[in-house]
């Protein structure tokens, strides 16, 4: 709570210091109906006319109507439905020829759809995975009817238990079937070849051999079967394949494919792996311990957002540099690159409706948005160089333009004592009366002390007497004797004139049952009538609470109530084991009648 409140005020300060804002509000449409992730946003000059468009791989409301949307300014230029949900969108230059219009790649399911000039151009499918040879063999046998379904099932179970290569969907489905359905399933499916297909989880681009802004780039794909693939931009062949210990979620690339590159993959097991050219396996790994929610490279520093609401900075060798705590859950992250001033910073969209911009540890700017921002993208849009595009949880679209005069200054609200230090201590005030009493005590302290002590002793004496009396007459609701540890409590139900009186009697000993108890009610017979004022209690098993019910009839109609005493007795003893006084309620039934 404290951290949140103090950083809140940090943020406020950072914001007010800016002379209102560094941003121009270009466009806000809360009903834009765009539901997407930062990975599915891309900015590119798709038509080669110098007018940059925004490409959105839109999941649609509830992730049900995936669309490819291209926006120009605030309006949607084209919109086309997609066969499956888009996992990532990227724009890249495919070849050197003029005109140098970038192609658009959209990863979805097992395929990458490539568009040129916004027209479908090519579809790349991930190569199918090799099936388990044993499994293949089994199904071949099934095809030739050399194996019965039950044996097939047993054998497949065996493979599932041990094998390195997992089973195909077909076999897994088969293993779930009941005995009666197996035969039909085998007949239906035995002639089909066994297929194992994987899907693309993430995608990014990497320059092929030149570091220029408009150089040809390769696509880098992360797949569900823990692999990274680099695709040739022209032929769409797999140039390189690297395997990871877990499934990649976010990718970050630096360098060129044919020279030297570094691939960073944040994975689902909470680790981040760093790969180099010429290494088929990760060279360094960062164990985050929690899930990463974003991965951004700022020059040489890897900035990782974690589910513990913090940003961490790591070197390219995986050494932790710093940690910054955020006031709320991080929803998305992206890079802010202002070419004109050579600034690179990290933007993080938070669940509390803030977008925070950090350069290393230093907070540069806080943007407040009407809804939590779920995807972010910064770059050239239209003809404006520094545009920030945000989409919100509710499907809104916000476009802001960075003022040309705006300069981000480091450490807006980070230095100096925390603001709470300036706040006054809330010391409780003392009244005039208190001061008077103090003075009186100084004058007559001894007398006060003596009177107090006397009264205290008297109080203790009376308390002790009352206690002894209660013990002697067993007035307490819990019996203190070692032989019959009992607990009693009573409940009165009803409005009257008839009440239901329920006694809950519990034997609190650990093992011994209690036998031969009696319950007796003492009451004013002019006021109440009970069907049985005296009855035997059944054997009490230890631990159970026995409800003993009886009806009480109120005879008086003047609204008078009285106490009913309940005594629990042992057979043959006159002193009660315990007793309870029940304050009967006034009979409302009679009063009303």
């Amino acid at each position, binding site marked *: *709570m*404290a*951290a949140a409140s*103090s950083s809140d005020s940090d943020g406020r300060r950072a914001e007010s210091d800016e002379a209102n804002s560094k941003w121009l509000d270009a466009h806000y449409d809360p009903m834009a109906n765009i539901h997407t992730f930062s990975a599915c946003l891309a900015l590119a000059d798709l038509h080669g006319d110098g007018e940059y468009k925004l490409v959105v791989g839109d999941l649609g409301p*509830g*992730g049900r109507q995936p669309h490819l949307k291209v926006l120009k300014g605030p309006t949607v230029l084209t919109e*086309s439905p*997609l*066969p499956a*949900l888009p*996992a990532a969108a990227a724009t890249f230059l495919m070849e050197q020829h003029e005109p140098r219009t970038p192609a658009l790649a959209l990863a979805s*399911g097992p395929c990458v*759809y490539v568009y040129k000039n*916004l027209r*479908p*151009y*090519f*579809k790349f*499918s991930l190569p199918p995975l090799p099936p388990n040879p044993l499994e293949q063999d089994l199904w071949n046998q099934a095809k030739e009817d050399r194996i019965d379904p039950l044996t097939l099932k047993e054998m497949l179970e065996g493979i*599932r*238990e*041990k094998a390195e290569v997992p089973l195909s*969907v*077909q076999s*897994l*489905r088969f293993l*779930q079937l009941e005995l009666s359905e197996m035969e039909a399933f085998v007949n*239906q499916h035995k002639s089909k070849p066994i297929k194992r*297909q*994987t*899907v*693309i*989880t993430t995608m990014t681009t990497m320059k092929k051999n030149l570091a220029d802004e408009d150089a040809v780039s390769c696509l880098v794909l992360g797949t*569900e079967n823990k692999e990274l693939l680099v695709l040739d931009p022209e032929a*769409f062949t797999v140039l390189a394949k690297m395997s990871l210990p877990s499934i990649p*979620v976010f990718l970050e690339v630096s360098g060129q494919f044919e020279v030297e590159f570094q691939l960073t993959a944040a994975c*689902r097991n909470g680790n981040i792996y760093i790969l180099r050219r010429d290494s088929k396996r990760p060279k360094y790994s960062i164990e985050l*311990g929690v*899930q990463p*929610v974003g991965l951004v490279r700022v020059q040489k520093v890897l900035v990782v957002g974690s*589910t513990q609401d913090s940003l961490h900075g790591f070197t390219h060798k995986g050494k932790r540099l710093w*940690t910054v705590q955020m006031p709320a859950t991080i929803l*998305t992250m992206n890079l802010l690159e202002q070419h004109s001033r050579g600034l690179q910073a990290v933007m993080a969209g938070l*669940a509390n409706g803030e977008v925070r911009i950090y350069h290393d540890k230093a907070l540069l700017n806080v943007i407040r948005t009407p809804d939590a921002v*779920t995807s972010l993208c910064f770059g050239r849009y239209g003809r404006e160089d520094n545009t920030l595009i945000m989409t919100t*949880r509710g499907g809104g679209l916000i476009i802001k333009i960075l003022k040309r005069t705006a300069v981000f200054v480091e450490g807006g609200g980070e230095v100096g*004592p925390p603001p*709470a230090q300036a*706040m*006054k*201590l809330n*010391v409780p*005030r*003392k009244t005039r009366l208190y001061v008077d009493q103090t003075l009186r*005590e*100084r004058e007559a*302290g001894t007398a*006060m*002390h003596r009177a*107090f002590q006397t009264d205290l002793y008297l109080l203790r004496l009376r308390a002790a007497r009352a206690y002894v009396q209660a013990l002697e007459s067993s007035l307490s609701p819990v019996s203190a004797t070692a032989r019959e540890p009992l607990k009693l409590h009573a409940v009165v139900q009803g409005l009257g004139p008839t009440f239901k009186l329920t006694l809950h009697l519990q034997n609190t000993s650990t093992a011994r049952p209690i036998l031969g108890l009696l319950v007796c009610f003492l009451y004013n017979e002019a006021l109440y009538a009970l069907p049985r004022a005296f009855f035997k209690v059944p054997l009490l098993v230890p631990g159970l609470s026995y409800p003993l019910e009886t009806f009480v009839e109120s005879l008086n109609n003047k609204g008078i109530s009285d106490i009913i005493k309940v005594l629990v007795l042992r057979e043959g003893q006159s002193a009660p084991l315990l007793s309870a006084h029940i304050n009967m309620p006034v009979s409302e039934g009679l009063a009303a009648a």
Partner: protein
Amino acid sequence: MAEEGLTTRTQFPVSAESQKPRLKKAPEFPILEKQNWLIHLYYIRKDYEACKAVIKEQLQETQGLCEYAIYVQALIFRLEGNIQESLELFQTCAILSPQCADNLKQVARSLFLLGKHKAATEVYNEAAKLNQKDWEICHNLGVCYIYLKQFNKAQDQLHNALHLNRHDLTYIMLGKIHLLEGDLDKAIEIYKKAVEFSPENTELLTTLGLLYLQLGIYQKAFEHLGNALTYDPTNYKAILAVGSIMQTHGDFDVALNKYRVVACAVPESPPLWNNIGMCFFGKKKYVAAISCLKRANYLAPFDWKILYNLGLVHLTMQQYASAFRFLSAAINFQPKMGELYMLLAVALTNLEDIENAKRAYTEAVRLDKCNPLVNLNYAVLLYNQGEKRGALAEYKEMEKKVNLLKDNSSLEFDSEMVEMAQKLGAALQVGEALVWTKPVIDPKSKHWTTSTTKPASLQQPLGSNQALGQAMSSAAAYRKLPSERRLPKAP
């Protein structure tokens, strides 16, 4: 790989292709992992509602075969507190892919959260067989062993975890084991290493600082706590401890400044209000001191240190009846401390109950081992009552203690106490008894801290105990006041 020249913009042949198999009799199976990435993205973004919707859809489509969907569903269940349900789902996952250590780890984690530490260790051991090099398994095994009170095994596992990969959390748990075993030095060793490994972790820095404070190594304590505050200026544990050190050195205004930050963060912390109260006491703002201490007492009515301070302030305010109440309450909670009886005796003396005052002094002298103040005050009382012989005996006893203290340490004595003792010595005609050295600091402040701080336990934040002990030391500095007041009565 399929290459097709696509012409239509709106429709991909994929959709046509997906209709093709339907013409045959065997339907195509959907890819099980089709939407895992989406589930994961919703999950890490903590958008659990959307996540559950996708999971439900995915499970329906794959007839419950999608392991990752079940896995995340179980994780969400666990976050929502339905640990039993999550455990069952994780077990389902473990059946779907028995080779995966991660599923076993989660099963064990759920068992751990259910408090079944023994069962959890078994599952973790099982998982360790599948994945030998996982620090998380080792770490969690270690934590389970801590709860099973098998500290040796726990240490082994935690060291293994550190060996595989170093994490702050592992260091913290190792440190906790040493603290549980009461081995402060080893705990400090561990925390030192941890701070070396991650120098910006404020929790580590604070804990190390507090441990030093507990051992009375103020310089290092201050250094580490200061570091913690540089990285996180609102870390209230560190502020409280730093403030108490400042208080010991008499920097009451600076300490109060620091406490303001804490008062904002944890307005209901009893040690905080105790320390603030004693700051005001140091600045001689007694009414404010009483207000703050009473608030502390209201927040922690069973804390004897607060009651002690309240008694002390009331004595200063000459409210002896109130002082008596607070001190006797403190004695009820802490019956083993000589100084408390001494203060009680001072209060009783002022309430003209000499008989009981003497009894309290006797008790104080019996319990106290090294505070000369107790004997001095007793001697003054006896002298005022005309019992010169008794006074002389107590005076001798005091000399013994003073000599002992002088031999053992280079500590110097409080000027007022020295003056008082010299006057009494003259009155008793003992001659020049002692050679008192430059009076500066109360001899007890150091001894006080170490003796009154309880060993840190797992549940209680270290800061409060420690800081309280510190405040006590500043309180201790004022204990001479009552003795001083008896002075005019001495002939």
